[in-house]
């Protein structure tokens, strides 16, 4: 797989400075952000209606238990708002032509029927849409033949508990239009209250006194006359559908209770069926409602509109209802045809589902279009094709979960209380269908005993899923863990084969889970049986002692593996990239991101199973790989909008505040009296202008806001609308465009924190909105302009450590066009790889190192310092200075903009079992060398025993799992077996952690006759006597449950990886390391190669044990992150930083001691000083300062006081 080597030489004419990223999951988003932030234009193509992917569906994430949505949503927002990322959601790539550097892609935007530009995501359409089912639409009439409405033949009267009680609440007024009345008397017959007087040849007259406003007359009056006129119906001007919805809502407020109630004769069902859905299957009769069950199209409107839950769907039809299920919630709850993918979706724009939308299929209804305040709904949308020119493609469509129905013995799909793990995630999620309560889908009961069955669709040859899905062991542990957090009564049990917690801090996580009463049973479950009465589930399995067991659980969660979807495979064919038999993109272990087609790179699970951090890491790496050859075109296609000069307000300028109170469609306005709030705002001191836009955030409103700021010479702006986290940046940029400092702004959240949480108390909500607005105005009044410090960036990178990570990073950074200083402690580059022999696919590492070394030597942008060490480091992101000592003993100061720590790790060599003293006891690395140099006696076939975890997962040695040993042992074992087919190899292991596609080699090894014997330090320890005489090993083989004695010629120890001595470096760089001495990343999930301090990154085994391939990927990832900094001429710092006023500084050191980032220091003017470039803006020092002489941006005492004092009306 060397297809991409050509592009690595970077020989091509004027590439296109743009990249198409396929897939909007965490992988695609990360790639897109890294590219866009490094000056590359991005087209992000996502097939679903919104970006976010699988991660958005997860509840919490291992091993930190971070809330998944909380950590991903900032990324969603950033991608959504990024000027240089063009989003194509609900879209697909149709075609890709051209070659690396200059492709042309055709992207199809499927019809969404909602204008993404205009829609403000208020979600009103979803509320008013009455449809809840997939209708049985009538055949579209053939050409010419006019369609006629079916007449009901089969009728059923739906009776309630008692006789209908007519209501005249929120009554519409019905009158007869004399002009139109044809005197047919249908209305007279329809009226159940004798309110309509009619004689033959007489026009009907409605006695308003008797009329209850049920609208039976309206329904009855034939279409050709339409003589009944309606008045006093709110929203009727919009549409009859809107009016019906409006009345239904007001009636619901008044009548709805938890229980179904008797019909109140509001008549909305019949009116909706007749006038909105144009079906006419419902009619009001004495005892209740008469349903034409044969003509009912089962749209569900009557049911969803009924204010008293009198109707249920199966009563009104003879057909089987087909409820619309929420895909995002894994079908655990319902949805409407018009549907916003999920609450935090980006773009927060609904899609109208062609299959179920009534308007699109029968032409009826169309209510949503009439209710939309910005006219964003267009039923005439058709799919649109766009072609884009790009230099590279990143293929990250992600994966789907295995279809558990294939493993019939577990009863998924048959037994209600058997769920998949992803379904369980939704159950746990606070924003999920049960809003976080763990309940059985079968009966809503709270389950106590829950079983997780591992490897469903993983490590399973029978269903062609031989690979390991890598994530299930951990997510099952997490789900069990969190389930108990939600409900401590839950007793989780996890049935597993090997516990593959191979990642950083994974083992501790599993141990913590055990402490939290999560039970682990090493057993394969053979079958699940349901008790049809209780819905409980009996599991059958064989325990470790070999006994058959039966155990009953309330709920079973299948830890389904991950797989490549058919559509992804199709797409791959279109893109002409090679996939393996399972559909994972084929890559090269030295170029883990490169696919078979030059210019196309893969990232995330599409290249093989992996968890979030690995995916994020690969995503950055792919961004790097995809952009390296485009470096010369960097910045050619991106847009930077120029801002007008800022107006500098004089000290005694009068206060001129503008206030914008947002309706947010009806989100706010339906509860809060925005007129009142606006009027109130006008009375507030300093307010010279106030208005209430329908949508403050809509394009036109923002344009208007800009004008108003100029017109009214506003010097402060306040908006009372939605969440600042999502919308503040938008409003602030509008201020800047109007030449106003962006900190002359404050925002009150009167939606999420007001109208949404107090829907039933409009008056108090309005008062609260006034208060929030008042406080925001006060805060804006106290506001001062803050300047955002800007400083130049030195476009050079310092790499500490010249192993494979450092070398790869050096080459890639140079390709990206940055200068590189590569500092290596040893005399020779290569690091740990110098001691290793061959890659997984059998190529010699020495060759690979040589190519790298040559590239480094050949590139004048890279300066290498061997036998040199870092001794001093200062400065901050963008401009660091680092002193190194060179072999000559002289120190040299290097200036650079970023630092990459790639100090690596080394093989652990404990003095156990005679290692180091006995010739026939060696480590896997030694063994690799022995296999290479042919020093083995080939005459007889030597027998080998490999001991796994010989030093890892052992408090006395390395407490953690070294991740690579299992694969290393399998690799050496296989190679050994090739050389000596008759030789015996036994591997003594605790858990074989051949994650991902490594499982395939594990399988091959077993087939090759390598014997795997599981031991356990506590319950089944290995006894080893190794001496000059020979090696004598005894252990019990659990598979045969008999003790075995082994006397091999060689004992090979998998000793694991230990961190290098980086204590000094770490303290110099002020970056943390964990107990084991590995560096701690800025965020375990989303910033895997960033160090906590700005401008510092890491790659390779300095971060934790990993394979050479993973190391290469991480090195590329780090370079991508570096590029986001070094590609910029200058960096802007937030204006919200702490500043010390030296006049009152007591030099007491309190701030110096309090700052979690060690930023404040005492300067030579004998005052504390805080470098704004380093300040993180938390404000801890401001609060601690005993002299109150530290201030901070817009969160100063002055501001907070202003808010507190304005809390209660003066």
């Amino acid at each position: 797989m060397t297809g991409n080597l050509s592009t690595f030489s970077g020989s091509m004419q004027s590439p296109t400075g743009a990249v198409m990223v396929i897939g909007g999951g965490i992988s695609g988003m990360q790639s897109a952000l890294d590219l866009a932030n490094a000056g590359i234009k991005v087209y992000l193509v996502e097939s679903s209606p919104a970006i976010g992917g699988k991660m958005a569906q997860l509840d919490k994430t291992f091993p930190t238990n971070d809330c998944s949505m909380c950590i991903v949503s900032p990324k969603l927002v950033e991608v959504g708002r990024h000027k240089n990322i063009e989003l194509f959601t609900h879209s697909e790539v149709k075609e890709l032509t051209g070659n690396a550097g200059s492709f042309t892609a055709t992207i199809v935007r499927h019809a969404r029927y909602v204008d993404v530009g205009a829609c403000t995501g208020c979600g009103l359409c979803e509320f008013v849409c009455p449809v809840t089912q997939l209708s049985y639409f009538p055949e579209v009439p053939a050409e010419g033949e006019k369609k006629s409405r079916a007449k009901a033949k089969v009728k059923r009267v739906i009776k309630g508990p008692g006789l209908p009680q007519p209501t005249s609440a929120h009554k519409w007024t019905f009158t007869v239009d004399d002009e139109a009345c044809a005197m047919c008397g249908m209305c007279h017959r329809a009226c159940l209250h004798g309110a309509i007087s009619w004689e033959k040849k007489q026009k009907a007259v409605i006695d308003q006194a008797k009329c209850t406003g049920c609208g039976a007359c309206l329904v009855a009056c034939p279409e050709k006359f339409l003589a009944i006129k309606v008045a006093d119906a709110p929203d009727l001007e919009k549409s009859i559908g809107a009016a019906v919805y409006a009345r239904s809502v007001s009636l619901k407020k008044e009548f709805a209770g938890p229980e179904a109630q008797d019909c109140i004769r509001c008549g909305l069902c019949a009116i909706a069926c007749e006038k909105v859905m144009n079906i006419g299957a419902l009619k009001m009769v004495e005892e209740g409602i008469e349903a034409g069950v044969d003509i009912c199209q089962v749209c569900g409107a009557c049911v969803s509109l009924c204010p008293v839950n009198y109707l249920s769907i199966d009563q009104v039809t003879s057909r089987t209802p087909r409820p619309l299920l929420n895909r995002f919630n894994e079908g655990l709850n319902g949805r409407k045809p018009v549907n916003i993918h999920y609450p935090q979706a980006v773009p927060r724009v609904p899609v109208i589902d062609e299959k179920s939308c009534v308007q699109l299929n029968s032409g009826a209804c169309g209510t949503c279009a009439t209710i939309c305040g910005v006219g964003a709904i267009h039923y005439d949308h058709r799919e649109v094709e766009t072609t884009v020119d790009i230099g590279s493609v990143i293929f990250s469509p992600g994966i789907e979960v295995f279809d558990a129905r294939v493993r019939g013995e577990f009863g998924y799909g048959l037994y209600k209380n058997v769920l998949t793990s992803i379904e369980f995630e939704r159950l746990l999620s606070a924003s999920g269908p049960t809003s976080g309560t763990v309940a059985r889908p079968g009966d809503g009961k709270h389950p106590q005993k829950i079983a997780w069955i591992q490897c469903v669709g993983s490590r399973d040859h029978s269903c062609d899923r031989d690979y390991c899905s890598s994530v299930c062991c951990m997510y099952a542990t997490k789900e069990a863990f969190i389930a108990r957090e939600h409900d401590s009564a839950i007793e989780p049990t996890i049935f597993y084969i090997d516990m593959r917690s191979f990642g950083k801090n994974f083992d501790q996580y599993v141990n913590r889970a055990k402490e939290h009463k999560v039970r682990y049973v090493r057993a394969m479950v053979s079958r699940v049986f349901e008790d049809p009465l209780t819905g409980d589930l009996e599991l059958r399995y064989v325990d470790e002692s070999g006994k058959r067991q039966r155990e009953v659980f309330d709920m079973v969660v299948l830890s389904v593996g991950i797989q490549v979807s058919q559509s992804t495979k199709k797409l791959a064919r279109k893109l002409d990239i090679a996939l393996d038999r399972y559909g994972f993109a084929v890559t090269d272990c030295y170029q883990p991101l490169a696919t078979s087609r030059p210019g196309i790179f893969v990232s995330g699970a599409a290249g093989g199973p992996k968890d979030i951090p690995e995916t994020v890491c690969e995503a950055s790496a792919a961004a790097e790989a995809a952009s390296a050859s485009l470096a010369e075109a960097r910045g050619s296609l991106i847009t930077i909008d120029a801002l007008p000069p800022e107006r500098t307000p004089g000290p005694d300028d009068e206060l001129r505040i503008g206030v914008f109170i947002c309706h947010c469609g009806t989100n706010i306005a339906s509860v809060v009296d925005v007129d009142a709030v606006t009027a109130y705002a006008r009375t507030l001191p300093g307010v010279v202008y106030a208005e209430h836009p329908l949508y403050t955030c809509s394009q036109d409103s923002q344009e208007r806001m800009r004008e108003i700021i100029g017109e009214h010479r506003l010097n402060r702006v306040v908006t009372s609308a939605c969440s600042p986290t999502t919308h503040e940046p938008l409003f602030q940029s509008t201020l800047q465009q109007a030449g106003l400092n962006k900190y002359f702004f404050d925002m009150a959240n009167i939606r999420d924190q007001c109208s949404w949480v107090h829907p039933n108390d409009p008056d108090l909500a309005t008062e609260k909105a006034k208060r929030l607005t008042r406080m925001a105005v006060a805060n804006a009044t106290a506001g001062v302009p803050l300047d955002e410090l800007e400083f130049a960036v030195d476009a050079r990178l310092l790499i500490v450590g010249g192993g494979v990570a450092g070398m790869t990073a050096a080459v890639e950074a140079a390709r990206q066009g940055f200068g590189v200083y590569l500092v290596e402690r040893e005399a020779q580059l290569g690091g740990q790889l110098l001691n290793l022999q061959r890659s997984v696919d059998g190529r010699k590492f020495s060759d690979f190192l040589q190519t790298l070394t040559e590239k480094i030597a050949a590139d004048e942008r890279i300066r290498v310092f061997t036998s040199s060490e870092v001794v001093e480091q200062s400065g901050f992101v963008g401009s660091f200075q680092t002193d190194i000592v060179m072999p000559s003993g002289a120190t040299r100061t290097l200036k650079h903009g970023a630092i990459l720590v790639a100090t690596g790790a080394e093989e652990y060599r404990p003095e156990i079992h005679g290692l180091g003293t006995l010739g026939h006891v060696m480590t896997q690395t030694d063994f690799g060398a022995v296999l290479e140099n042919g020093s083995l006696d080939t005459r007889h076939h030597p027998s080998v025993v490999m001991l796994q975890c010989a030093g890892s997962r052992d408090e006395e040695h390395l407490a953690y799992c070294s991740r690579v040993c299992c694969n290393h042992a399998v690799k050496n074992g296989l190679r050994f077996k090739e050389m000596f087919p008759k030789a015996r190899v036994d591997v003594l292991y605790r858990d074989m952690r051949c994650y991902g596609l490594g499982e395939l080699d594990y399988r091959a090894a077993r087939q090759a006759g390598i014997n795997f014997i599981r031991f356990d330090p506590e319950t089944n320890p290995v006894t080893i006597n190794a001496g000059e005489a020979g090696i004598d090993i005894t252990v019990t083989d659990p598979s045969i449950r008999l003790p075995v004695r082994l006397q091999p010629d060689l004992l090979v120890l998998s000793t694991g990886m230990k961190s290098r001595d980086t204590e000094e470096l770490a303290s110099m760089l002020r970056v943390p390391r964990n107990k084991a001495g590995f560096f701690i990343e800025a965020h375990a999930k989303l910033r895997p190669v960033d160090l906590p301090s700005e401008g510092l990154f890491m790659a390779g085994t300095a971060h934790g044990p990993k394979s050479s391939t993973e190391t290469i990927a991480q090195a590329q990832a780090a370079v991508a992150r570096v590029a986001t900094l070094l590609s910029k001429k200058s960096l802007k710092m937030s204006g919200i930083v702490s500043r010390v006023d030296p006049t009152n500084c007591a030099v007491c050191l309190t701030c110096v001691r309090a700052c979690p980032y060690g930023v404040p220091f005492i300067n030579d003017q004998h005052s504390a000083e805080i470098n704004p470039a380093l300040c993180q803006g938390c404000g801890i020092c401001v609060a601690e300062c005993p002299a109150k002489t530290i201030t901070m941006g817009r969160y100063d005492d002055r501001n907070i006081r202003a808010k507190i004092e304005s809390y209660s009306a003066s």
Partner: protein
Amino acid sequence: MLPCTGRIDESLLLKAFENGADGVMVIGCLEGDCHYISGNIRARARVERVYAILERIKIGPNRIRMYNLSAGEGSKFAAFANEFVNQIREVGPSPINLVRGATKTEAVTAKETT
């Protein structure tokens, strides 16, 4: 809204009470999960100091409380808010307000962005 509860200090919390608050709830990240490493721990200490002060000057007790939440735990936030408001209803309006003749029970909320 503050960048971090680490920003709030005793003088500001007391200001709220001077300003007629019957109760103050401070809501920070989960402990050990602070976006700024240790801000919420410091905030807790300050809240405890103010709690002690209020108790001694016969305004407290139980009028100030620190809660910890992770972002997106909206329902939990609501639960906390209700719990706290009920707690304040129990202890009744602040003596300050009784003196000033005010009676409405409300809680000023210092909330942290996460």
